[in-house]
């Protein structure tokens, strides 16, 4: 019953999406406005139907209705209820339904918010939504159907992939998908503007705000993924440059570039084609990402089992790329601009450089990800492109980015006077050099980490210095103290100060990455009872093993006491989980974080015969916690950026 209901809902939603595609076209052909409302109703109809379908699947999962194949393959009777719900996106079919659900939520919200506005482009915007939605609904309805039934009905299900039984499963995929899907909104607006040739200013504001929201979700989704990898997966790392991870990161780059270059467009009315290209690129990369994950053409630890859908995703990707860039090429003439700049030293130039570096990084990561295919196709040689390559090649690019992050806010729009520049940069530059020397003397002898830390301190100092100057100005003008001044600054220049806070957050993340990449220590040893392992400033003492039967697995936990500089810091329990369906046990590492470093323990193995022996792998990773702190700072900055403020005459938009 549930299966039939869900499937019918999806099929009907697909039909509604087809209507939503047809109606603006019919309106354009026949010239009658009434067709345009059908587009909106189509979106609302899809919203209700997809909600119904998702609800049906969640109900089936929670009620362990094993007559549905998806439920039988992804839950068992013993699975706790919250993992049954996350089973909705645990496998291919359900994840497509999740994508569609989030897409239609975004579409519905867009349709509702703008129901009285942007009259001329909204129907086309909704048509683009319907096109994307129709594709996903078509795949769900006819190709990879989560409501497929299975006969005979099994007594118990196969269960969720044990790696996915984790609290982060509840946050990481929905956040990440929200980021991907969120990029559909500016894309839809951009395409609608191109189709209707309404390429003036009005749509920019809408696009920008949606892009910030999507960018935020994308950042949060990637960071939660890194956290999950670090915290749970037990190899001590947070980013493996796995093809699917790259695919999730790649849309972030053009989105960030867009958020910067759109400011140039707003002020100088140039770079329109470039900005549209960035948005199309960002959206295409999300489709590319979902294609990569589901087609199996590149082996990845995140890949879903490849079904027949891969080919269709490639077809859709081709349609999007050719259609969007083709339309852009066709309409490029209508984007009349007279680009001119006042000076080579200006924030506009800095933003242009920023864009170049971001797009180069995008190119690098894309090339690395698909290079195995290229090599096999052209040279016939099978190669692997792994973390060592990406780390080597992207680090210089990202260091350059950090430098630009420091330089950008200090330069004025239009024309920066060189002597002011000298004055503004002198103090932060000197300060960062001093910090660099101190670091060198103390510990940091290698070139790249030293450069990294120096640049990071440079950025922090520029932000602090810039804010200090502005506060001084506020004091001179309005006599406001520091806190009052900060609040006023933030209120009046929301985007600017939100952006600076986001930059601070990025600095913290880069700090964490730099520290952990350069100064990690690793030791592995087989310890007898009460034997100790020395690593860095820590001593780890093995206290014993304990086995216990959990609802879904058998768990062997090791108890280790940790000493730091002689003082006892507590007891950690890394574990190995044995699942009946898995060939090898799944490790559950634990770590103890402080502001300066994490000690990370992995139970690699143990002796079955002798409960008093265990193999321990210990890692000391400095500064990792700053990555997660940086994530929160970015969230704060984004909130400052998009917090709805009353628009006064004197405030910037």
């Amino acid at each position, binding site marked *: 019953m549930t299966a039939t209901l869900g499937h019918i809902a999806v099929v009907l939603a697909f039909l509604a999406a087809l209507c939503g595609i047809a109606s603006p076209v019919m309106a354009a052909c026949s010239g009658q406005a009434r067709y345009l409302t059908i587009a909106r109703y189509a979106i609302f109809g899809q919203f209700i139907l997809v909600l119904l379908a998702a609800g049906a699947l969640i109900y089936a999962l929670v009620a362990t209705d094993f007559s549905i194949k998806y439920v039988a393959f992804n839950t068992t009777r013993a699975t706790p209820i919250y993992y049954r719900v996350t089973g909705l996106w645990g496998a291919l079919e359900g994840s497509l339904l999740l994508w569609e659900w989030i897409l239609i939520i975004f579409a519905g919200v867009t349709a509702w918010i703008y129901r009285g506005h942007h009259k001329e482009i909204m129907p086309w915007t909704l048509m683009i939504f319907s096109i994307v939605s129709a594709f996903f609904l078509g795949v769900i309805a006819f190709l990879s159907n989560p409501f497929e039934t299975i006969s005979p009905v099994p007594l118990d299900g196969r269960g969720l992939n044990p790696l996915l039984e984790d609290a982060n499963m509840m946050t990481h995929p929905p956040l990440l998908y929200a980021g991907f899907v969120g990029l559909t909104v500016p894309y839809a607006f951009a395409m609608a503007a191109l189709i209707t040739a309404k390429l003036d200013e009005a749509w920019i504001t809408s696009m920008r705000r949606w892009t910030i929201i999507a960018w935020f979700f994308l950042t949060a989704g990637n960071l939660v993924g890194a956290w999950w990898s670090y915290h749970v997966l*037990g190899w001590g790392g947070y980013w493996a440059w796995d093809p699917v991870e790259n695919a999730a990161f790649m849309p972030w780059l053009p989105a960030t570039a867009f958020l910067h270059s759109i400011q140039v467009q707003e002020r100088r009315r140039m770079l329109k084609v470039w900005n549209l290209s960035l948005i199309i690129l960002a959206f295409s990369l999300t489709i590319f990402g979902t294609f990569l994950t589901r087609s199996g053409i590149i082996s990845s630890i995140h890949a879903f089992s490849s079904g027949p859908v891969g080919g269709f995703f490639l077809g859709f990707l081709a349609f999007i790329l050719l259609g969007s860039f083709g339309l852009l090429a066709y309409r490029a003439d209508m984007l009349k601009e007279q680009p001119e700049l006042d000076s080579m030293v200006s924030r506009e130039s800095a933003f242009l450089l920023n864009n170049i570096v971001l797009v180069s990084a995008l190119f690098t990561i894309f090339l690395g990800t698909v290079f195995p295919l290229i090599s096999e196709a052209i040279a016939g040689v099978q190669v692997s492109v792994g973390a060592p390559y990406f780390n080597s090649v992207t680090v210089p690019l990202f260091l350059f980015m950090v430098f630009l992050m420091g330089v950008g806010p200090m330069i004025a729009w239009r024309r920066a006077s060189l002597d002011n520049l000298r004055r503004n940069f002198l103090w932060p530059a000197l300060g960062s050099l001093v910090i660099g020397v101190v670091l060198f003397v103390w510990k940091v002898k290698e070139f790249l980490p030293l450069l990294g830390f120096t640049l990071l301190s440079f950025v922090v100092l520029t932000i602090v210095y810039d804010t200090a100057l502005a506060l001084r100005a506020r004091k001179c003008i309005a006599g406001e103290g520091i806190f009052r001044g900060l609040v006023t600054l933030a209120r009046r220049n929301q985007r600017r100060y939100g952006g600076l806070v986001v930059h601070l957050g990025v600095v913290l993340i880069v700090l964490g990455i730099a520290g952990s990449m350069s100064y990690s220590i690793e030791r592995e040893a087989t310890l007898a009872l009460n034997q100790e392992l020395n690593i860095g400033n820590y001593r780890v003492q093995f206290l014993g093993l304990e086995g216990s039967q959990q609802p879904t697995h058998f768990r062997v936990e090791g108890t280790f006491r940790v000493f730091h500089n002689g003082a006892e810091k507590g007891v950690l329990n890394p574990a190995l989980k044995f699942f009946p369906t898995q060939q090898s046990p799944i490790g559950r590492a634990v770590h103890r974080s402080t502001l300066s470093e994490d000690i990370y323990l992995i139970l690699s193995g143990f002796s079955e015969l002798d409960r008093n022996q265990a193999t321990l792998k210990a890692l000391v990773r400095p500064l990792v916690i700053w990555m997660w702190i940086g994530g929160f700072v970015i969230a704060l900055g984004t909130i400052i950026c998009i917090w709805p403020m009353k628009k006064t005459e004197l405030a910037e938009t």
Partner: protein
Amino acid sequence: MPAVFHRVDSLLTLIAAKAAIQVLRSWTGRSLMIVLALALAPPLFAAATPDLEEQTRELAAELRCVVCQNLSVADSPSEMAQQMRAVVREQLEAGKTPEQVKEFFVSKYGDWVLLRPRMTGFSALLWVLPYVVLILGVITALWFIRRWVAAKKSHGPVAGPSASAQMRSEFFKENFARPDPEDSSPRASLLRERARLQDELNELDFDFQSGKLSDSDHIALKQEIEAKTVAVIEQIHALPPKAPAKPAPTEKSARGTDTAAGADRSRLRRWQLVTGAVFLVVFGLALGVMLTQSVRPRLSERDTMTGDFLTGTRSTNSTVNAALAEGKTAFAHREFPKAIEAFKKVLTADPDNPEAHSYMGYILLQAGHGDGALMAFDKALSQAPNLPMALWGKGMVLYQDKQDFAAARGIFEKLLSLVPPGEERNEIAKVLAEIPAGGAQKRTTAAPSSSRQISGRITIDAKLKAKVEPDATLFIIARPAGAAAGPPLAVKKVDRPSFPLDYTLGQDNVMMQGTPFTGKISVTVRLDNDGNPVTRGPGDLTGDYKKNPVEVGAKHVDIVIDQLTQ
């Protein structure tokens, strides 16, 4: 090993011991033992020099684990990665350089095993292109910037304002509302331009206050912006006086004094109604049709009501299921050729279908092909290791055909653990108990054990003695108790019998090779004149054992032929 766990030091040890035994028994226990084997086998890590460890780890981080996806050998927890690490350590200890060790692995796995692609050959592109793109990008950007700056210079400075200073300040005080973003009239775009210029001015002031602009730049730029603002305001004033502002008509806010608008609205509402009605009708129809087609009566307690229509079965699936069902019914009716055909159809569509393999196994078993049956059951079990039917079949083959009792017992015990309590379980337990203890026996051609036969005497009723034809054939027929029709379980043919006749009917008389001659049977006897056991012509003499059904193993199953077929 159990002895170790009989040490009872503490409750904890006992609990852990019980858990460990369970684990050992289970499949995961074996993987544990493998982990053990590999954790203990290599020399203790602490003994090696730290330098070697570092080197090993660094090198392992450059090699790709061949079983995991995209992990390095250093990070991978898999067994193969441990083995590879051991090989790396060994080679480093033997004095090889890291390059040589990498080359060794490349000679075995190809360039694929290197996580850092080579810098020579085709992969050199990978190292060169990113920097090329970056440098080209920067150069292009700088070129464009220079061009744009030159464009600005060539346009010349903006003309000074024509109005006087006083008029200018009045212009700035003039309060223009921000226009509706929808509005695309020229007035609105001019207003937007004016607002934008105002924002630019504010930003300029802010930048100046923050000290980013020099005084001269500030004044120069401010003049420029002010000049542009004045020009825009003049243009606004130059426009014809605007009509009283008509807010953009939304569907809700258009209150109709306008009859045209009203008519439009009512037409719109009609359209909405029609669309809604169409949707509802289609939805209802779809729901009705599909539900009735897909709902079917439950076939069993574990079955559900929803069926196969639309909810997932595609043509291949349905033909497989149909053929499977066909084969099963044919098998139940003992129409083996038809069953074989149907199962072959299943296997062409789905070559690994365990059920089809199991049934084929049974059919082969009936036909006496023990080896073929065993292969078929193994194929079935390789796909579905716990399929009860295949296990039962394999057990029977091993027991009956191969006489491999130990293996058969193992299989039956496994089956016993899988099947829930009930009739089937009792059946399995019975067979299990039957298997004689001891190891596998070579297949003997000795006489079957006495428990597998019946014996007795056949006599002819005095009244019918005269009706006996000299060249009649005697058929002794045993059928499973209760089965009146269908092929018999065992048949013995005796040519030119002389009565009274002592007979035995045993395992080697069964019709289908491999079918056990056990259980309750009913025995009949026929003296057939034309020698064809199938036909029953007039003149045939028959007799039934009066105390049918009888248990196999019984002696003195004496039958009197006392009926004459008319």
